[in-house]
């Protein structure tokens, strides 16, 4: 009954979204406040209906109602509650429902809260948002309905892939989708601005909070995915340049470029065309990601079940939506004002350089992901593009970008002066070079590129701090004055500092972990031990454990350093009988910011008929920073979002124009 109610609510959401398009569109055309208001109401109601539909599906999963095809295919009655809830978005159909929930949710926020937007612009944006919602809802209702019942319900479900039964992965899709779909509002605002023919500093200011929010969500989502890969896949890697990872990384790179170009448009009215182009591209890449993950054109560890028909439909949606937006852009772009001029050394130039490098990086990731498909379509030859390609192309672009990052915030708008910026950065430069040289000198084995990376990380972190010090005039006046300035610093400035600092922290962790990771593997009988760097891992015993929906072998391993036990680790191997899969549960001991990472491998026949186990131990130095860095970046985004200049713009304008 509740399932049928959910199916009804889903269709209702589609109808309401269509109503939203018509009411807002016609309302704008006739300049009728009543119709525009009704369109906004429809947007709110569509979100309400979809929230009910989503709750109905979650209910079916929680109660293990196997007469629903989607539940039977993706759940199991013995699964813990958390994973029954997260299974709601663990399948293709359920994840589309989550996508739609985010899409109508952002539409509702746009309709309900965008009070500072000009009425006409907002009406068009709400209509465009409704149009995107209608298309994806129609796809969900007609081609991927999660509420389909089975005539002959099975007694037990087929369960969710055990690799996905994990707390980080349970919350990873909601964050990722909030990020992907948050870009839809930016897209709608861009299309609305093109329709209205007005792209100026005010528009850039309206776009910024949405971009910031979506970017922060996306950052958290991608980081959670990387963290999951790190501890769940069992070989200590956290980024594989896998097509699905790339699919989430491309919108992130474009959104990062957009955040920076929108600043130029907001402060100086320059680059409006480019900013709009990025706004359209960001959501187009999000849709491309949704298509790549679901179409089966690429093989990946994260992909959903393959279905060519759905792939074609999603490709159609992508081409129609992005194609019409880019066409509109091509028509309107020549008429856009170019905005203010600026000198070669200026904040604008630095931000343009950032955009050039980020665009090249996005294109690299796009090509690396799609080129094998293109070449196979043209010549029929299959090739692979893997991590070695990205190391040779993407990494140099990022090194250049990291070199430039600290300069940007220190240069003045319009015509900057390099020497004061350079003077402010001398400590960062000196210490960065020293850090790199020290790494080259002291760390074994000697690695030139990784040492360069460490120097770069130090340059980024200290550069971000130098910029903050410059803003509060630290050491150049009385301390009280600096403290006063510190308190008065706008949140947006904090956001920049935090985001750039987070980037440095990430680079530090990534370089250190990649280059100076230690590894050892050995077959051990209980009582034997294995050396990993300074650590000694002693296998105490291995016992069978019964889990809620799996059977496991769990090892007790004691990690000793200088003969003293520092941690007790319990890595295990789980066997899920529902799907016939084996997974490895890694044990991680965090020592300061580094990880001792231990994996229990397969059992092998040992001497005298007793079993021995393959145990792998990794020492991942500073690995925690890889995940803390992006968390700091996302925090920077959120802090920037609370800037009063973004919130109070509405009130101040009303005062000015009575």
């Amino acid at each position: 009954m509740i399932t049928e109610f959910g199916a009804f609510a889903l269709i209702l959401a589609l109808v309401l979204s269509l109503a939203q398009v018509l009411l807002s569109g016609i309302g704008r055309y006739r300049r009728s406040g009543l119709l525009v208001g009704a369109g906004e109401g429809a947007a709110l109601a569509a979100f309400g209906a979809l929230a009910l539909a989503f709750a109905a599906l979650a209910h079916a999963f929680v109660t293990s109602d196997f007469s629903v095809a989607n539940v039977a295919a993706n759940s199991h009655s013995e699964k813990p509650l958390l994973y029954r809830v997260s299974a709601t978005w663990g399948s293709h159909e359920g994840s589309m429902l989550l996508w739609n929930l985010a899409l109508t949710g952002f539409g509702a926020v746009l309709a309900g809260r965008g009070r500072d937007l000009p009425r006409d612009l907002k009406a068009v944006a709400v209509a465009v948002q409704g149009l995107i919602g209608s298309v994806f809802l129609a796809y969900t209702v007609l081609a991927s309905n999660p509420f389909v019942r089975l005539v002959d319900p099975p007694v037990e479900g087929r369960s969710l892939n055990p690799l996905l039964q994990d707390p980080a992965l349970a919350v990873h899709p909601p964050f990722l989708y909030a990020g992907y779909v948050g870009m839809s509002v930016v897209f709608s605002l861009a299309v609305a601005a093109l329709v209205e023919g007005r792209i100026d500093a005010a528009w850039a200011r309206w776009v910024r909070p949405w971009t910031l929010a979506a970017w922060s969500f996306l950052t958290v989502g991608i980081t959670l995915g990387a963290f999951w890969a790190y501890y769940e896949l069992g070989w200590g890697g956290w980024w594989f340049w896998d097509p699905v990872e790339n699919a989430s990384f491309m919108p992130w790179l474009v959104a990062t470029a957009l955040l920076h170009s929108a600043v130029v448009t907001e402060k100086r009215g320059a680059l409006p065309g480019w900013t709009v182009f990025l706004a359209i591209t960001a959501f187009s890449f999000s849709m491309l990601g949704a298509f790549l993950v679901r179409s089966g054109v690429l093989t990946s560890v994260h992909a959903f079940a393959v279905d060519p028909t759905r792939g074609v439909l999603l490709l159609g949606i992508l081409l129609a939506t992005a194609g019409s937006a880019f066409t509109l852009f091509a028509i309107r772009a020549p008429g856009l004002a170019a905005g203010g001029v600026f000198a070669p050394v200026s904040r604008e130039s630095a931000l343009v350089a950032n955009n050039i490098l980020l665009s090249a990086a996005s294109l690299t990731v796009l090509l690396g992901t799609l080129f094998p498909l293109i070449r196979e379509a043209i010549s029929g030859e299959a090739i692979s593009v893997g991590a070695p390609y990205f190391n040779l192309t993407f990494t140099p672009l990022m090194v250049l970008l990291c070199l430039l990052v600290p300069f940007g915030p220190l240069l003045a708008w319009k015509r900057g002066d390099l020497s004061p910026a350079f003077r402010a950065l001398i400590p960062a430069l000196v210490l960065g070079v020293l850090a790199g040289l020290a790494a080259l000198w002291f760390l074994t084995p000697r690695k030139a590129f990784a040492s360069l990376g460490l120097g770069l990380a130090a340059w980024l972190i200290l550069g971000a701090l130098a910029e903050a010090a410059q803003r509060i005039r630290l050491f150049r006046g009385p301390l009280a004055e600096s403290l006063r300035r510190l308190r008065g610093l706008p949140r947006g400035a904090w956001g920049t500092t935090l985001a750039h600092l987070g980037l440095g922290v990430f680079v530090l962790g990534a370089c250190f972990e990649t280059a100076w990771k230690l590894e050892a593997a050995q077959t051990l009988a209980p009582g034997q031990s294995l050396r990993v760097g300074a650590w000694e891992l002693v296998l105490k015993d291995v016992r069978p454990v019964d889990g809620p929906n799996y059977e496991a072998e769990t090892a007790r391993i004691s990690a000793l350093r200088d003969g003293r036990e520092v941690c007790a680790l319990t890595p295990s191997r789980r066997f899920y009988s529902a799907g016939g899969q084996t997974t490895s549960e890694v044990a991680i001991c965090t020592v300061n910011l580094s990880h001792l990472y231990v994996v229990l491998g397969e059992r092998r026949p040992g001497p005298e008929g007793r079993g021995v186990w393959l145990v792998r131990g990794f020492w991942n130095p500073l690995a925690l920073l890889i995940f803390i860095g992006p968390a700091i970046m996302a925090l920077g985004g959120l802090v920037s979002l609370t800037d009063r200049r973004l919130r109070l713009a509405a009130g101040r304008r009303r005062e000015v124009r009575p």
Partner: protein
Amino acid sequence: MSLAVALAAALCLAAASDPAERLPDPAQEARARALFREVRCMVCQNESIADSEAGLAVDLRRLVRERIASGQDDAQVRGWLVDRYGEFVLLRPSFSWANLALWLAPLAVVIAGVLALAARLRRPAPADAALTEAEARRLSELLAGADGHDPALKSSRDDPNA
């Protein structure tokens, strides 16, 4: 020297480090490990044979190690792999005519971007100096009145860089 090589050999990814598979010569083992990362595990989903525990990856690791132990250089091993499985097996695509766009596009974007920026910088300032008389009068009025700015364009006072 040999110490550095031995340490380098210890720095590798998971599956390939199985003690049952290792080569006795640490220098050869290090070369084998570096090669594994460039070889695709054909039956896996986007993994190199360094990472995978699949049967095919185990076999390929053994075959690559055998070839290295028999004195072949990296190019010979790669050539043998491509003859056997096609270019698909290499995770690092070859630098060939067919892959030219793949390798050069990032550079092309950077060059195009720098040229566009240079063009933008060389463009003369819009003729905002030439104001009509009415505009000049309006401007002086606006400058005289404190609240005449568009608040969206006006930066807040507390941002020293604005």
